[in-house]
């Protein structure tokens, strides 16, 4: 049970990282990205291919390469979708993630296809007891989450973040304000994709095994759900929302088990029903999420006469 809790905490951290990535792209800049899991896959595969399948790079180098490659993939997708907005951007990014998954399934010589890649190394795995490894990894993920969170906070409160939030409201007026909008959009997309790819690489090294079916669009939906429930645009909301979604997805497992007379298929359906109900409740009573974003207040001179 302890191991299970630790594993769930690791997943909550990874979801939190991805929600922070989505928050840069969607929450701050307003670009819809339904292809998040594609960048997670790019990160996971890059690191796995470099540390076990095609080379034996050290883990840190694999994770670093994964972050860079997914960032580049993000910049690429941002450039080819430069003129798209809203629904159209949603469809193209969704298509991107499916293309990544299908390439991973079919380029068998390169990725080992649907059999996936196993024996991905983890730091100190095999040198310490599995429980210790889990705890160690939880510490690593927590540290990574903290660093990324602080960087995202710094970004959000900087003049850079102000331009991103301006683009979210109206990109044409932002251009008239003198800002090179395309550069900002590309960079924001790349940052978000890099964070997501980083989380994907950490996932691979934790799980020791990745396969294309682990990168289905449902994961993107969970991240969107986490960010929406937490508070779109808010970094605190992203992290808390991710933790809540993981806790709730896992918690419903135990709740549903207590309901008598359900078949296995029904159990799964009731869990999904409960997760959906949670989101509806949150958005009904907290439409801006649990931790709605606030615009920074600046000190102004006293105006009372």
């Amino acid at each position, binding site marked *: 049970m302890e191991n299970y809790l630790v594993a769930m905490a690791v997943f909550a951290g990874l979801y939190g990282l991805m929600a922070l990535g989505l928050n840069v792209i969607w929450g701050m800049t307003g670009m819809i990205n339904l292809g998040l899991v594609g960048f997670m896959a790019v990160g996971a595969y890059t690191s796995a291919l470099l540390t076990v399948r095609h080379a034996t790079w050290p883990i840190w180098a694999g994770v670093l390469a994964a972050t860079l490659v997914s960032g580049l993939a993000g910049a690429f997708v941002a450039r080819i979708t430069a003129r798209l907005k809203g629904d159209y951007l949603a469809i193209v990014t969704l298509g991107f993630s499916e293309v990544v998954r299908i390439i991973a399934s079919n380029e068998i010589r390169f990725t080992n296809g649907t059999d996936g890649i196993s024996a991905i190394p983890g730091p100190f795995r095999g040198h310490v007891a599995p429980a210790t490894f889990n705890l160690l990894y939880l510490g690593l993920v927590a540290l990574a989450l903290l660093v990324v969170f602080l*960087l995202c906070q*710094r*970004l959000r409160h*900087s*003049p*850079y*973040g*102000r*331009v991103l*939030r*301006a683009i*979210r*409201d*109206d990109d*044409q*007026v*932002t*251009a*008239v*304000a*003198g*800002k*090179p*909008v395309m550069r900002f959009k590309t*960079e924001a997309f790349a*940052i978000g994709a890099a964070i997501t790819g980083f989380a994907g690489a950490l996932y691979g090294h934790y799980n020791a095994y990745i396969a294309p079916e682990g990168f289905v669009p449902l994961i993107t939906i969970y991240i969107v759900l986490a960010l929406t429930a937490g508070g779109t645009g808010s970094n605190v909301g992203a992290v808390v929302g991710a933790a809540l979604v993981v806790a709730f997805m896992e918690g419903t497992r135990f709740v549903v088990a207590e309901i008598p007379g359900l078949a296995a298929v029904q159990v799964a359906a009731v869990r999904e029903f409960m997760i959906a109900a949670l989101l509806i409740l949150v958005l009904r009573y907290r439409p801006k999420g649990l931790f709605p974003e606030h*615009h*920074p*207040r*600046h000190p*102004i*001179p006293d*105006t009372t006469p």
Partner: protein
Amino acid sequence: MAPALPLRHATVPPLMPLLEVHDLSRAYYGVRAIDGLDLDVASGTITGLIGPNGAGKTTAFNVISGLVPPDRGTVRFDGTDITGWRPDAITRAGLVRTFQIARGFPRLSVLENLMLYGAHQPGESLPVALFGAWGKREEELRERAIATARRLNLLRVANNPASDLSGGQKKLLEIGRALMTDPRMIMLDEPIAGVNPTLSAQIGEHLLSLRDEGITFLIIEHHMDAIARLCDPVIVMAEGRKLTEGAFTAIAADHSVQEAYMGRRAGHLAQPSA
């Protein structure tokens, strides 16, 4: 082509205009929104741009400010050909525009709206934003924004989101944002439309004092009292090109202008009695 150039230059008035638009054209799906538009704005003027709905005034603004590329023609600002430049580059060159239906950043505070328009903030580069120092410039921009807000009577609402402002305050914020770019010329799209008379008089006063400080204006407005009070000269557009130009009184008396506003049929009907 070469021999034609000296001829055209010979007709240019001795004082070079700040904004020169020549033969500017832009069609949307075959409809010629502007079609061979020529107009000059002299430095230090508040030039009015009027004309019936659909005359192409807003399209002219969109093309001049770089939001929409032209099909043909040139735009020169302060002697530099800025045709086809990106909007952000045109703004940085000193020519900024505002929008008709107070568009902008509803989820940014009034102060953030103003500070956003400030140039040369190093914290708008990613590495500097994350690891560098941008606080000093931010402080300068904040002081500037506070001064601008105070001038436009927006200081009391400076930390409110822009979406909370009244219609008139939004118009003032549009002007304030434009001012934050340190412009040489501002193009205002209906700065007074829909504002109560008191505030509209105030906006007029602001524009006159800014003109006296050296900023040139090109203003689209339907409110003729305001045009008469503020603008000289006034340019009349109809059917995508310049119809005429002159002082407001001359324009108001011009038969072709009345015809353009009332429609051709009315013009023909009016003719026999004239």
